């Protein structure tokens, strides 16, 4: 009885172990099953398929379409590629980044991406153009065919320059002659290969024109662009400081041996703003008595090329001091014109003796000029004379005393 019971325990345990083991095997079995599936691949299978089978482009534009070449078989394959039909007037080829491609080796189950590049000739008009693509294994047993249809639409707008495209968003800039102008050009390489483009510009005499990369402070004279890449280039223009207001064209030329492009830019000068101020003899110091006004003549000169309007005068002074300008403001000052302003500075009668700094600011909209004056506050000598008078009086009294009561 006891033995039988033990046996039943044992079988029970055994069955549990079995179940666990089976479960375990089942768990580990999955990848093995996947491998089995791969084995299900056909012996050999290749395919070539374009990313887009039909595209629409405008006239004169190049087309690049990704080609997906895959090996669906169990064997690695050498696949030959060729274009079976190219419409008249087009140039087309299959390529990687830099080479033309006629064959490609693809491992089992893998695929490779290539590019079909089609360039229309000059006389290619609007219409539908079909390109045939054929992939074939090296032994010629398997082939895969595909095609791409390019619909060319009539191009609207200006005729683009060949090989290079220059776009500028703001072709006309305006500002004062002492300013700096920066144009932004978008240069696009339309050639099918890398190229170095020389940058040259022609502007008015004595103007400084430099090319800079966008957001970088260095001057460049050429730019290297990959095929189809575009790059923004800044054109920095410093006008001749004494240039007269007016319109000044600037011609920018971007050229490589194969292609060249031009862009016309325009700078409109509005004249520069400059203000000069000072005293007639250059002396910036002033003596003043406490509570008494002191005068100073200040000249204001417009040394810019544009007229200045609404010139105001401000001062930074100690508290309770008075600074008055006469006239209080100048409405308009023509270029190179000079005007004299009378400044009256009155220190407070409580001011301590010593040197004070008084700042005069002449402000005309966007330009201003400051003059710092040293105002020496002196005590009035009047009290000195009163003091001397008192002493003289006392001495006189003493002398009177000597005469009156002396010689006794």
């Amino acid at each position: 009885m006891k033995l039988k019971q033990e046996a039943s325990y044992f079988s029970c345990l055994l069955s549990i172990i079995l179940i666990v083991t089976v479960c375990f095997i089942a768990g580990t079995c999955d990848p093995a099953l996947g491998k089995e599936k791969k084995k299900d691949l056909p012996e050999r299978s290749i395919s070539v398929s374009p990313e887009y089978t039909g595209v629409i482009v405008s006239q004169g534009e190049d087309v690049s379409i990704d080609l997906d070449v895959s090996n669906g078989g169990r064997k690695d394959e050498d696949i030959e590629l060729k274009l079976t039909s190219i419409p008249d007037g087009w140039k087309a080829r299959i390529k990687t980044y830099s080479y033309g491609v006629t064959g490609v080796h693809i491992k089992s189950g893998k695929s490779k991406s290539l590019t079909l590049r089609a360039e229309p000739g000059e006389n290619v008009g609007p219409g539908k153009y079909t390109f045939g693509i054929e992939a074939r294994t090296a032994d010629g047993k398997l082939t895969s065919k595909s095609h791409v249809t390019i619909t060319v639409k009539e191009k609207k707008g200006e005729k683009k320059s060949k090989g290079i495209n220059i776009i500028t968003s703001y072709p006309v800039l305006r500002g004062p002659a002492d300013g700096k102008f920066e144009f932004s050009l978008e240069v696009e390489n339309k050639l099918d290969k890398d190229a170095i483009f020389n940058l040259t510009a022609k502007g008015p005499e004595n103007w400084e024109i430099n090319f800079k990369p966008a957001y970088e402070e260095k001057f460049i004279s050429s730019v290297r662009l990959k095929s189809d890449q575009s790059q923004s280039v800044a054109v920095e223009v410093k006008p001749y400081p004494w240039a007269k207001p007016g319109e000044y064209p600037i011609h920018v030329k971007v050229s490589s041996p194969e292609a060249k492009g031009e862009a016309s830019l325009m700078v409109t000068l509005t004249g520069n703003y400059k203000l000069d101020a000072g005293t007639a003899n250059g002396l910036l110091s002033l003596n003043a008595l406490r509570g008494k006004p002191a005068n100073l003549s200040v000249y204001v000169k417009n040394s810019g090329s544009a007229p200045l309007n609404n010139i105001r005068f401000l001062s930074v002074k100690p508290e309770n001091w008075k600074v008055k300008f006469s006239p209080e403001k100048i409405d308009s000052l023509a270029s190179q014109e000079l005007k004299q302003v009378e400044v009256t500075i009155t220190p407070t009668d409580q001011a301590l003796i010593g040197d004070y700094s008084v700042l005069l600011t002449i402000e005309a909209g966007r330009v201003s000029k400051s003059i710092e004056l040293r105002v020496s506050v002196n005590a009035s000598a009047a009290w000195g004379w009163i003091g001397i008078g008192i002493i003289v009086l006392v001495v006189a009294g003493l002398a009177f005393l000597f005469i009156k009561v002396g010689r006794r």
Partner: protein
Amino acid sequence: MQGLYAVFRKEICDHFTSYRFVILFALIAMISLITSYMAGIHLREDLEALAKTRYPFLMLFSTPGAMFSMVQFVAFFGPLIGLVLGFDSINRERAHGTLIKLVSQPIYRDAVINGKFLAGVMTVSVMLLSIILVITGFGLAIVGLVPGVEEIWRLFVFLIISIFYVSFWIALSILFSILFKSIVTSALASGALWIFLWLIIPVGANVLANAVAPINAHEETQAETIIKNARIKEITSLASPMVLYSEATAAIIDPMLNTTRSITLMGPMEKLLSSRFQNPLPLGQSLLVVFPHLTVLIAITLICFAVSYLVFMLQEIRT
């Protein structure tokens, strides 16, 4: 004039040969030498402050050495010289009975008092000039400073003010010696007045200022109250010739000083803009700052002498 010169010469002779004067002069010369030596040493160590000022030579007189600067020293002990020189000038003659003998000579009575006063002034001038020259020599030797023209002028003005200041005390002590018959009384009276003007007046000024414009330490006081307090204190303490002299010479010796007030109300812009140029004042402006002080100092000296002259001339001296 004959009599005046004779009295003057005799008095100077007496002053320079008396033990009293020799002891006093030795004491003062010693103190001033030590003070200037300390100031010189101090200046040599603190060359930075020396480099900042335009007139470094004057710092020999304004820098406190051991305890006080040269200027303060004259302010406190100048009166002592004046009092010691004059407190017994008339009543000693009277006590010894020589005054009657003197006036029985062909000498006018006013020549006696004029001669005595001028002799005192002369003695003090010699004393102060020699002290200033000794300090100047010290400056040359210890610090290597050479006085400029402006500095020499300022020292000259300082010397003149100091002579007037000490002369005031001489005149005062002569007045006491005329008023009091006893030498001891006049000595005590001059000493008491000296201490009163030196110690009591500043304390009294403080009390008065706090009574009129009280400054509470626990509460925030308005700026006006503080100014008022300071002004009352300053004006009241000007009753002391020591304060008068100290303020006057401070502005002469320190060209940067542009006011005699201890505290002034200044706006932030005013403060900023006035600190932009830190230029010393020219001597004329420094003089104008303290001109009221100088006027009062000279006037009280002359008035004090005039009063003693009047009293002496009208006095009965034969008894």
